């Protein structure tokens, strides 16, 4: 039998392999991002008290579970469905529509699901140790079902912010800031932990910084899926160079962030603080997420360092001046870090940044995006918490909070 190979066949095979390469990369990256869930779980468990550990782990486990379901159910379509008024995507139940991606839609669904779940899980840290479990569950559903997809649509789904040229490559604003501002509203409306603000702010040390450190390392590791994965392609020299740059900008920003936080805490509090340095690494990672593809390695170092400095002052300001109780520093890491990183794209982007001769236009768009998403997250968060407050309540009772949420909310202790 004769087999003739013509150019079309070869081209088609090459293209098919390229698509496979892209798909495999996206799925591997998404799996790394999924692994950030235990990272968050360990950070939050480590930075809170042992009597509440089973509760915080449940919240982390379930926000990923219900988030995955809600995002598949309709959340994805609201984010990536065909555009309605530059505001929202066309809703579609059970992911039956065709989204026209070059790699399988299911791969994109999984990739976007783990990103949505990242936004949802940030909230649990900010409201830890005093929030009702059922309230938190409902909140997680609404975030992944609606709040996150809408602002996500504005930036990644073809909505109005993307039309203006807003640049958030992997989600400093779309993912991290959304989670942080929702957490901020939550922390304010739930109120501080009992005994936190008796006159001065009282230190409530985390029960196990070993878990905290493990969590941060896992998050750092998972970020190598979060950022480079957002390229959504791996085939071809352009993509491989892009991804490789992103690995470097990501890692350098984390390193610079942890170093900066360490130095600031050393100078300001006389000790290089483990917990603040851990937060600093995360702040650097959150900050670089917006521009990891368009800044230079040097720019990444500066972005990470700035985020690390802001982190320490932010934690102090939010805790001691604003008297908002955020046990894990989620608002500082993901909110301030996310906003700072997004803004700094307007300065350091090699494609239109202020320092590269692009003028102030990109900076302005970045600022607009930061503020718009902040307003959206805080507004919808406020409404949602208000409704929950007047129906099932936000907070556990005093006795439960004092004795620990594990026994009373779950009938189990993390430690026996």
């Amino acid at each position, binding site marked *: 039998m004769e087999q003739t190979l013509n150019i079309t066949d070869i081209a088609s095979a090459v293209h098919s392999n390229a698509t496979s390469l892209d798909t495999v990369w996206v799925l591997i990256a998404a799996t790394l991002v999924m692994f950030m869930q235990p990272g968050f779980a360990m950070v939050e468990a480590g930075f809170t008290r042992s009597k509440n550990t089973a509760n915080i782990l449940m919240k982390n486990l379930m926000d990923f579970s219900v988030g995955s379901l809600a995002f598949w159910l309709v959340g994805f379509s609201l984010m990536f469905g065909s555009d309605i008024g530059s505001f929202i995507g066309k809703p579609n139940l059970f992911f039956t529509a065709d989204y026209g991606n070059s790699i399988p839609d299911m791969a994109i669904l999984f990739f976007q699901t783990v990103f949505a779940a990242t936004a949802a899980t940030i909230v649990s840290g900010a409201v830890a140790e005093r929030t009702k479990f059922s309230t938190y569950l409902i909140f997680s559903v609404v975030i992944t079902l609606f709040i996150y997809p809408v602002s996500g649509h504005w930036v990644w789904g073809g909505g109005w912010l993307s039309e203006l040229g807003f640049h958030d490559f992997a989600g400093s604003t779309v993912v991290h800031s959304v989670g942080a501002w929702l957490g901020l509203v939550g922390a304010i409306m739930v109120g501080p932990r009992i005994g936190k603000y008796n006159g*001065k*702010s*009282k*230190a*409530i*040390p985390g029960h196990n910084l070993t878990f905290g450190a493990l969590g941060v390392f896992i998050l750092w590791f998972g970020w190598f899926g979060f950022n480079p994965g957002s390229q959504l392609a791996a085939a071809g020299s352009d993509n491989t160079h892009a991804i490789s740059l992103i690995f470097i900008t990501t890692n350098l920003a984390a390193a610079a962030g942890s170093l900066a936080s360490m130095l600031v*805490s050393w100078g*300001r*509090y*006389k*000790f290089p*603080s483990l*917990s*603040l340095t851990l937060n600093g690494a995360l702040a650097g990672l959150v900050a670089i997420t917006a521009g990891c593809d368009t800044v230079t390695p040097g720019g990444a170092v500066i972005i990470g360092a700035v985020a690390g400095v802001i982190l*320490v002052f932010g*934690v*102090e300001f939010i*805790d*001691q001046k604003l008297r908002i109780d955020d046990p894990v*520093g989620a608002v500082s890491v993901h909110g301030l870090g996310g906003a700072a990183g997004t803004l700094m794209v307007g300065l350091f982007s090699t494609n239109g940044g202020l320092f590269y001769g692009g003028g102030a236009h990109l900076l302005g768009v970045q600022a607009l995006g930061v503020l718009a998403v902040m307003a959206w997250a805080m507004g919808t968060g406020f409404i949602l918490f208000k409704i929950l407050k007047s129906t099932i309540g936000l907070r556990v009772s005093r006795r439960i909070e004092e004795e620990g949420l594990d026994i009373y909310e779950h009938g189990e202790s993390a430690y026996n």
Partner: protein
Amino acid sequence: MKKIEAIIRKTKFDEVKEALNEVGIDFFSYWDVRGIGQARQERVYRGVVYDTSSIERTKLSIIVRDKNVDKTVKAILDTARTGEIGDGKIFVVDIQQSYRIRTGESGDEALFIKGLEE
């Protein structure tokens, strides 16, 4: 019979145990305790200075015959001392009666092994 309760630094435990062995005191209980006292331990957690106020120590409970009280106390005093505030305390308490559970013996015989007498 007397009970000697000693609250000592955790770091001094091994030395004290050795010293007690050397004077023939081989049986006692001990556990980790926390206390309130003068020793201050300032810590900083995420920018907030706080005083742990809760001082970790090891407590020993040694039941001895009256004739062994002095050498036991001396052994502890000599080895547990550092000269800094927070070295600890020793209390001597009367014991009314003691029993060995395995054999039912009571009184002084319950406190030592016959034949290994010192």
